[in-house]
């Protein structure tokens, strides 16, 4: 096994924390991601990562945990995006784009201040690329609590959420309030994005949200199966990514490890490619 798992992997407490936190985050991203893909809200998810990034940068500037900044900014940004947006797809897209642009500008400004203040060394790195190996153990309970709350909220609203995602008019006729449901979901989405930003960084967290979900949706038939598949694919990607990143330290004589985020996204790309091949093969079989 030496060639596969480099020495110290299992005994290292930092790795243990990373594996647990990574798995928790992947479960949330998988479950939320399936709904994001079904609702066609990948773009909103991506905009939220930019908003979260601004929050994370702001948090580092004032010395708070990035997760807190990711969360606050995401919920506020997502809420205002949903409140400003209308049911017309094009207006919603424009509102999302405006928020995205503003957030990216703010992030750049805040990160500039962060990187020029000596007290916050490494913050820019962890906001952009995640901090699963350097996360302070005190953040883990908060992360797990946010994850549990997010999953519970998603589970409670799942049926009206699905109905209004499939057809808002049908849902409204039945007495569902699509705007209220949309707002609830965007908060769930913001929390999920914040969690994945913590692990693989804000830049790549859309990949963890959408990648495993879209792969699972290609393979599974129903929504339940797709959700389980997305969770499995996400957990596999994060855990394999952490392992690969750890191992990569030993790959070159220079001992420079590949960041976790890059490894995780690499695994996700492989999963997406495999699912595409699989569904093409199924289509050919008929």
């Amino acid at each position, binding site marked *: 096994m030496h060639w596969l798992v480099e020495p110290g992997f299992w005994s290292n407490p930092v790795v243990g924390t990373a594996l647990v936190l990574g798995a928790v985050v992947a479960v949330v991203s998988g479950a939320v991601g399936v709904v994001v893909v079904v609702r066609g809200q990948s773009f909103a998810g991506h905009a939220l990562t930019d908003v979260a990034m601004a929050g994370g940068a702001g948090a580092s500037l004032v010395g708070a945990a990035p997760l807190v900044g990711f969360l606050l900014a995401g919920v506020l940004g997502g809420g205002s995006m949903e409140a400003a947006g209308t049911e017309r797809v094009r207006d919603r897209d424009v509102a999302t784009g405006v928020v995205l642009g503003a957030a990216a500008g703010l992030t750049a400004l805040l990160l500039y201040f962060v990187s020029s203040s000596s007290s916050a060394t490494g913050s820019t790195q962890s906001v952009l690329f995640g901090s699963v190996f350097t996360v302070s153990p005190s953040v883990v309970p908060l992360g797990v609590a946010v994850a549990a709350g997010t999953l519970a909220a998603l589970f409670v609203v799942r*049926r009206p959420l699905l109905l209004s995602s499939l057809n808002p008019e049908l849902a409204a006729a039945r007495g569902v309030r699509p705007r209220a449901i949309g707002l609830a979901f965007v908060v769930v989405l913001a929390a999920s994005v914040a969690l994945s930003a913590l692990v693989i960084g804000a830049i790549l967290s859309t990949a963890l949200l959408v990648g495993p979900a879209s792969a699972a949706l290609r393979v599974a038939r129903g929504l339940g199966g*797709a959700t389980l598949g997305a969770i499995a694919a996400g957990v596999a990607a994060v855990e394999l990514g952490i392992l690969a990143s750890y191992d990569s330290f030993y790959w070159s004589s220079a001992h420079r490890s590949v960041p976790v985020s890059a490894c995780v996204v690499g695994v996700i790309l492989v999963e997406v490619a495999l699912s595409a091949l699989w569904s093409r093969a199924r289509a050919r079989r008929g």
Partner: protein
Amino acid sequence: MGCEPLPEDRREVVHVHRVEVALGGRTVLHDVDFRVGEGEFVGLIGTNGSGKTTLLRAILGLQATTAGEVIVAGRPGRRGGPVGYVPQRVAFDHDVPVRVADFVALGVDGTRLGLARRGRGVRERVEAVLASLELSALAGRRIGALSGGEQQRVLMAHALASRPRLLLLDEPLANLDLPRVHETIAVLDRVRRAEGVAVVLSAHEIGPLVPVMDRVIYIAQGGVACGTTEEVVRAEVLSALYGHHVDVLTVHGRVVVVEGEAGDPGAHPEVVVR
């Protein structure tokens, strides 16, 4: 424009009472008044843009009225009432990952929040509705993978699943070929008798509906005329509704409604009966 009272033996499920609707500053429906009785099959007939969709949405509480009121099952109409709805032109994307049976189940419990799993009662109801619409074979398929006609049938099952008192169908026949049109009407006729649900179906052609309809609501110029086919599809009634002369002709045993003066290049046969 008024309407005949309900046949004596029917209890009322919906009363549209002197409803007016304005859209974008224009009055689209004006003084619309009619009732539909329990288990009735009613055709809502009018050309494109005559206000069929607007009227159905007003009954559902999706469209605000500027005057008048809608009473559904004795109570003011509101969203979430005992009304099933099949909107016009719903098409699910090819990759929508929801099974037919799950989508139909959302017709029963799609508004419910909570942690509870889907109960046996819901699953049994879904099976029964799928069977009565001849959809059992599709239960495990993804809705996105079905043809347009199949999707529409699934939407009917979804709308019926919650045992509504009234089923509103907006142009469900528009994209079907003639054999499918007759099949769909026959299935709906059977289901409304079995379930005791009133059906209001909008269409721009009256012909295929004549054998099953109890009454017709004809909609034009923002108003309605209603009654049996024989009462409504007559030159005087339709001319009054349109506000200009309309001919109702019988050609080879079929009734043809011709709008406009003779020799008018815009004149076109509009409605065909029998």
